[in-house]
C-alpha cells in the first residue's frame, strides 16, 4: 500500500442493486476509521436497470497522521489506477476492463461470475449470448488478482441484496492488504446502517467466505458430458407418437449414418453429422402441436416444477392459468390433409384481405378439474395427429431434407454437415414456425449446391434476426435470387378537410 496515494475502488453494477448503499458503507467505514474518504457516482437513471458506476477514494493515512493536511481526491476513476474493481455482473466487469480501468499490475478484480443478459443478447432467434468463458478469461488475464463467484446465488441464499454480499467479498479482499480495515469494522458499519441488518450480515458472511475461497482460483469451466443423442431422440419420438414412429426415426438416423459413412469412411469427424442430424431430426419429428403442448402441460412433473419455480411452500395453494391461442393453423393441422389444406387456403385469403387471423385466446386453469380434463382430452387426440395435415407436411419436408443431405454427402462431408444442421431452423408454432420453414426452404432451394461456408453463414444469419434481413443479405452475397416480397395489407387513412 502506497501511503501517499489514495486507495481507489471502482464499483460497476446494474441499477437497483444497491451499489449506492455499498459506496456509502465504504465511506462510512473510512470515516469511522478516521480516514479521509470521498465517493462519487454516475447513477444516471440508476433504478432503470442500466449500467451504473460508483467510485470511492480512501486515503491510507488517518486524519490524525495527516495533521490537518486535506488530500485532493479525484471525482472519477483513472484508467490503470484502480486498486479494487468490484462488479456485480460479469459483463460489466469486462466492460470496465475494456475501458482500461483495470490494471494487471495494480488491480484486484472482484466480480460476480453470473450474467444478467443484456436485452441485445436476448433478441436473437438463436443464441445471441456473449461467451461467458471468454469473459472470465479476459477478467483473469487482465487483473492482478481475480475473485469470481456467483454473487446472485449467494444473495438469494442469504435472502438479502447484492450490496451486502459484495461488501463481505470486499472485506475478504481487504484482508489481503488492499484496505486497512478488518472484518469487524465492516460489520460495525452494516450494523449502524440499521435497515435489514440481520439479512445484510448473513449476506456479508456468505460473501466473505465465497470470495476468500474464490481468491486466486479461477472458476473451473463446466465440462459437459455429451449424452447419447440418438437414444434420447428415439425416446422423444416414441413419447411423442408411438413405437412405429420411433422406428421411422431409427430408419432416418440410419440413412444419415450411411450418408456420413460415404462422405467420411475413416470417421475423421467422429460421426458428428449423424449425431447432430439425429438431434434436430428428433426435435423436428416431435414437432410442437396442440396435442403435445396439452400433454406436457398436464403432467405431474410440470405441476411440481411450477410450484418449485414459484417458490410455493407446503400448505400454500397454487393456481395455474395457461395462456393458449389456438388458431386455424392448429385446428387444420389435425384435420385430414385435403380438408386441412382447404381450411388453410381460406384462412390465408382472409388474411390477404386484411382480416385478422382467426384464433381463440384461452386462459385455461390447469389446476381446475375442468381445465385439467380439457388438457387431457386434447392430449388424447394423438391418433388424429398421424392422419393430420401438419403431420403430412412435416414428413414431406423431413424427407426432402434427408435427400438433400444424402445427395450432398456424395460430394462433401462439410456441405452435408452444414445442410444437416439447417434443421435447427425448424422450431416453434404458428407464425414462428411458418417463418422458420420459409427460411429453411429458401436455403434448401438456393444453396444445396454451394459450399459449406456459404450454407453456414446463411444458417447463422437466419438465427440472428426475425425480420429475415440478415438472411436475405447472406443469400444475396451467395448470389441467390431474392425472395418474393410478401403481400401485407396496407391501409391508407382518408384525408379530411383541406388541412392535414
Amino acid at each position, binding site marked *: 500500500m502506497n501511503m501517499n496515494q489514495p486507495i481507489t475502488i471502482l464499483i460497476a453494477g446494474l441499477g437497483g442493486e444497491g451499489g449506492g448503499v455499498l459506496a456509502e458503507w465504504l*465511506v462510512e467505514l473510512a470515516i469511522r476509521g478516521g480516514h479521509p474518504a470521498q465517493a462519487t457516482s454516475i447513477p444516471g437513471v440508476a433504478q432503470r436497470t442500466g449500467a451504473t458506476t460508483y467510485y470511492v477514494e480512501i486515503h491510507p493515512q488517518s486524519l490524525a497522521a495527516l495533521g490537518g493536511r486535506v488530500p485532493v481526491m479525484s*471525482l472519477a476513476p483513472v484508467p490503470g489506477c484502480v486498486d479494487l474493481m468490484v462488479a456485480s455482473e460479469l459483463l460489466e466487469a469486462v466492460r470496465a476492463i475494456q475501458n482500461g480501468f483495470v490494471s494487471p499490475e495494480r488491480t484486484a478484480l472482484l466480480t460476480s461470475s453470473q450474467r444478467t443478459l443484456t436485452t441485445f443478447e436476448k433478441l436473437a432467434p438463436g443464441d445471441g449470448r456473449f461467451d461467458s468463458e471468454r469473459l472470465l478469461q479476459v477478467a483473469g488475464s487482465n487483473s492482478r488478482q481475480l475473485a469470481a463467484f456467483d454473487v446472485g446465488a449467494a444473495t438469494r441464499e442469504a435472502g438479502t441484496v447484492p450490496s451486502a454480499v459484495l461488501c463481505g467479498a470486499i472485506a475478504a479482499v481487504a484482508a489481503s492488504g488492499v484496505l486497512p480495515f478488518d472484518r469487524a469494522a465492516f460489520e460495525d458499519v452494516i450494523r449502524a446502517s440499521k435497515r435489514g441488518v440481520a439479512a445484510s450480515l448473513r449476506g456479508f458472511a456468505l460473501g466473505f467466505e465465497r470470495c476468500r475461497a474464490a481468491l486466486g482460483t479461477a472458476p473451473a469451466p463446466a465440462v459437459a458430458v455429451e449424452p447419447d443423442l440418438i437414444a434420447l431422440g428415439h425416446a422423444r419420438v416414441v413419447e411423442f407418437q408411438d413405437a412405429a414412429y420411433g422406428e421411422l426415426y431409427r430408419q432416418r438416423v440410419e440413412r444419415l449414418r450411411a450418408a456420413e459413412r460415404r462422405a467420411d469412411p475413416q470417421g475423421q469427424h467422429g460421426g458428428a453429422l449423424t449425431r447432430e442430424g439425429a438431434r434436430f431430426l428428433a426435435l423436428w419429428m416431435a414437432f410442437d402441436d396442440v396435442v403435445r403442448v396439452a400433454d406436457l402441460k*398436464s403432467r405431474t412433473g410440470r405441476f411440481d416444477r411450477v410450484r418449485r419455480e414459484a417458490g410455493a411452500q407446503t400448505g400454500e395453494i397454487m*393456481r395455474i392459468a395457461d395462456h393458449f391461442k389456438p388458431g386455424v393453423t392448429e385446428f387444420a393441422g389435425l384435420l385430414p390433409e385435403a380438408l386441412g389444406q382447404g381450411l388453410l387456403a381460406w384462412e390465408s385469403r382472409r388474411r390477404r384481405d386484411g382480416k385478422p387471423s382467426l384464433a381463440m385466446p384461452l386462459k385455461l386453469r390447469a389446476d381446475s378439474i375442468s381445465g385439467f380434463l380439457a388438457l387431457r382430452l386434447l392430449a388424447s387426440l394423438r391418433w388424429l395427429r398421424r392422419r393430420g395435415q401438419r403431420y403430412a407436411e412435416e414428413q414431406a419436408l423431413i424427407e426432402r431434407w434427408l435427400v438433400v443431405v444424402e445427395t450432398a454427402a456424395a460430394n462433401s462431408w462439410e456441405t452435408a454437415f452444414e445442410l444437416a444442421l439447417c434443421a435447427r431452423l425448424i422450431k416453434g408454432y404458428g407464425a414462428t414456425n411458418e417463418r422458420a420453414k420459409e427460411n429453411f426452404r429458401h436455403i434448401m432451394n438456393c444453396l444445396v449446391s454451394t459450399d459449406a461456408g456459404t450454407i453456414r453463414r446463411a444458417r447463422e444469419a437466419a438465427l440472428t434476426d426475425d425480420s429475415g434481413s440478415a438472411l436475405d443479405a447472406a443469400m444475396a452475397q451467395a448470389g441467390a435470387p431474392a425472395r418474393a416480397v410478401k403481400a401485407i395489407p396496407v391501409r391508407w387513412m382518408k384525408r379530411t378537410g383541406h388541412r392535414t
Partner: protein
Amino acid sequence: MEVSFSKEVQQLRQGKGETFHGEGILAITKALLQSGVAYVGGYQGAPVSHLLDVMVQAEDYMAELGVHVEACSNEASAAAMLGASIHYPLRGAVTWKSVVGTNVAADALSNLASPGVTGGALIIVGEDYGEGASVIQERTHAFAMKSSLLLLDPRPQLPNMVRMVEQGFALSEACNTPAILQLRVRACHVRGSFECADNRSPAMSRKALRDEPATFDYEKLAHPPATFRQEKLKNEQRLPAARRFILEQGLNELFSGTRSVGSSVGSSDIGLIVQGGLHNTLVRALQQFNLADAFGAAELPMLVLNVTYPLVPEQIADFCRGKRAVLVVEEGQPEYLEHEIMATLRRQDVNTAIHGKDLLQMAGEYTVEVIAQGLVKFLARHAADLPLAGAQNWLAANAARRRAVVEQLAAPLPPRPPQFCTGCPERPVFSALKLAQQNVGPVHVAADIGCHSFATFEPFGFGHTILGYGMSLASRAGVSPMLKRRALAVMGDGGFWHNGLLTGVESALFNKDDAVLLIMKNGYTSATGTQDIISTPDDEIKATAENKHQSLVDRNHTIENTLRGIGVEWLRTVPSYQVDTMRRTLEEAFTTETGGLKVIIAEGECQLERQRRVKPWLAGLLKAGKRVVKVKYGVDDDVCSGDHSCIRLSGCPTLTLKDSDDPLKVDPVATVIEGCVGCGLCGENAHAATLCPSFYRVEIVQNPGLGERLLAAARRGVIGLFQKP
C-alpha cells in the same frame, strides 16, 4: 417520490460545531439555509433533483424558518419566480438541469438579468455534461455571457462548494446581478463533509410578512426605455462591481507552484488556469507526471476560477505576466474563457503564449487521461526540463491494454442502456404499437423526454425525433402534412404538464392538425424520480385503496378534463396493460376517417410507486397471518421453442434466457426470473401476438382459508387419478 429523505432532512437542521457528511447537492441545500434563503423553487431533473426533493420533504422545518418552497411546473416558472428578488431584499434560489432547463428558462432569465436584483438570486444548475449525461452537450456558460449573469463553477470540495453558495448570494447582491452556480454530475453526487454553520431565518419571510408592496419603479421593469439604460448598467456598474468583489473576497484561488526559474522561488515561467470544477481532475493528471502530491501541492502555479464569468482582467494579467506560456483547462465548446483571456491579455499588452483547445480536445468531458494528453503536449513545448516519460508510458499502457482487450474479446461487448423497469406500464403500450404497425404499416413516431424514450432502445426502436421535453406533438406539425399515414406523438404526463399542453395540444387544435397523441398517464414525472404532479393520485386515495396492487391514476382526471376543456373530441383512455385493446385503439386512431387531433391516454401507474405501496402492505398482511395471493408468470421450458419472439415484444428485465434442460435443444429457452411483479404483460402479449403457448400465470395463495384448502385438496385428488408423471 422514489426516495425518502428523512435522514437528509434531519441533516438540514445541523448547526455550528456539527459536521455534515453527505452528497454535494445536499451540502448546497444546507448552504442555502445557512445563507438565509427566503424562497426556493425549481424543476426536478438529474443531477440536481435531490435539492428540491429534500426541500419539499422538509416542509415542516422550512415553515419553521419561514422559507417558501415551490415545485414549479417547469424551468421557466422557476426562473420567473426569481422576480421576487428584483424589488425585495429576498434571497432566492432555484434549481434545474442544464443546459435544457436553462433553455426553457431563458426568456425569464433575460428579463430578470436586465433590471437586475436587490436580494441575492442564485440559480443552481446541474451541468449535465460528459459521462452519464442524458441531454445534448452544450455549455451553460453561453447564457451567463449573453445575459450578463454571474457564473460560479466551484472547486468540487464540499467546504468550497458551501462557501461559493454563501459568497454567491453576497456577490449577487454586491452587483445586483443574478448568479448561476454550476455543478457537474459527479460534483452533485460527491460524498464529502464540511463544518456546518447555523441556519439563518430570513428577515423578510412567510413568518415575517411585509406590510406594503414595493413602490412603483419603472427602472425595475424589463421594458423600454428602461431596458436601454439597464444594458449600459451591466457593463458600466454591475460587472465592474462583480469584479471588485471577486478580487476582494478572493473567490478565485491562486495556488503558487513550487517550480522556480533562476534564483527567485515560485517564479514559474509557465502556469495553468482551470475552471474550479476541474481542479481535482487537473491535480490527479499532474500526479501522473509527479508534478503534484496527494494534497494538491503542485509544481506549476494554478489559477483556479471558482467564478468563470465575469473574469477579472487584472487578475488574469497578473497571473500571466512574466510567464512564457499558460495552459487554459476549459471543458466544452466553444472555448469562451480562452478567447476572453487572449483578448484581455492582448489589450493589456501581456504577451504570454496562451494554449487551450489547440492542445486539449475540443469536445467531451475532461477526464484525467484527456487533460494528461494535453499536458504532455504543453510541457513538451514549454518545459523541456520536466519529466514526461512517466505520464507518456501510463497513457501508452492504457491504449495498449484497451487494444489487447478488444482483440481478446473478438466481438464487441453488447451495450446496456437503461430500460423500462420490471412491470412498467409503458412497456405494454409499445408492444401494442409494434403489433399495430404490423397491421397498418410503419408510422412516424415523434418521441419525447421521459421514461418512454427508452422505447428508442431494443427491443422496440421507436422514435424518429426528440425535440425537447413535451415537444413531441409540436415536432410532428411539419411532418404529418407530408405523409400518407398519420404521425404519432408520444408524451408522458410529466412532459404534458411541463410544456406539451400548450406547445403541442393547443397548437394542433388551433391549426386543426390531423395527428395522434399518445399520453403515458403514469401519475408522476417518473424519469426524474417520480415527483408528484397535478395529475398524481391523492395520498388519501392511496392510503384508503383496498388493493394496493391496483393502479390508482384513474382516480385523477385532470388530464382528461383539461383536454376536453380545451376542445379535444376524439379521446380514448385505455388501461395500458390491455395490449390487444391498445393495439385496436391505435389502429383506429391511425385509420379512422375522423380528422383533427386524436388523443389516446395510456393509463397505468408507475410500477416503482406501486411497489412502494405493495411491499410494506404484503409484509404487514403476512406478519398478521392474513391471506395473500402472490402472482408470478412463468415459461414451460419444455414447451418454449427457443425462438424468443416473446422477448422481442417485451424486453422485460425478468423475462430472460437460460440453457435448456433438454439435451436435444441447443438454443437457450425463455425464463422468468425472480423479480417478476406479475404485471400480466407476458400473458397479454401471448394473446395479442399469438406467441407460443409456453406462458403461464401462477398464483400462490399464502395463508389460505379452510374452504380454499378443501377445494384444492379435492381438485388434487381428482387430477391425481388421471395425471401422467
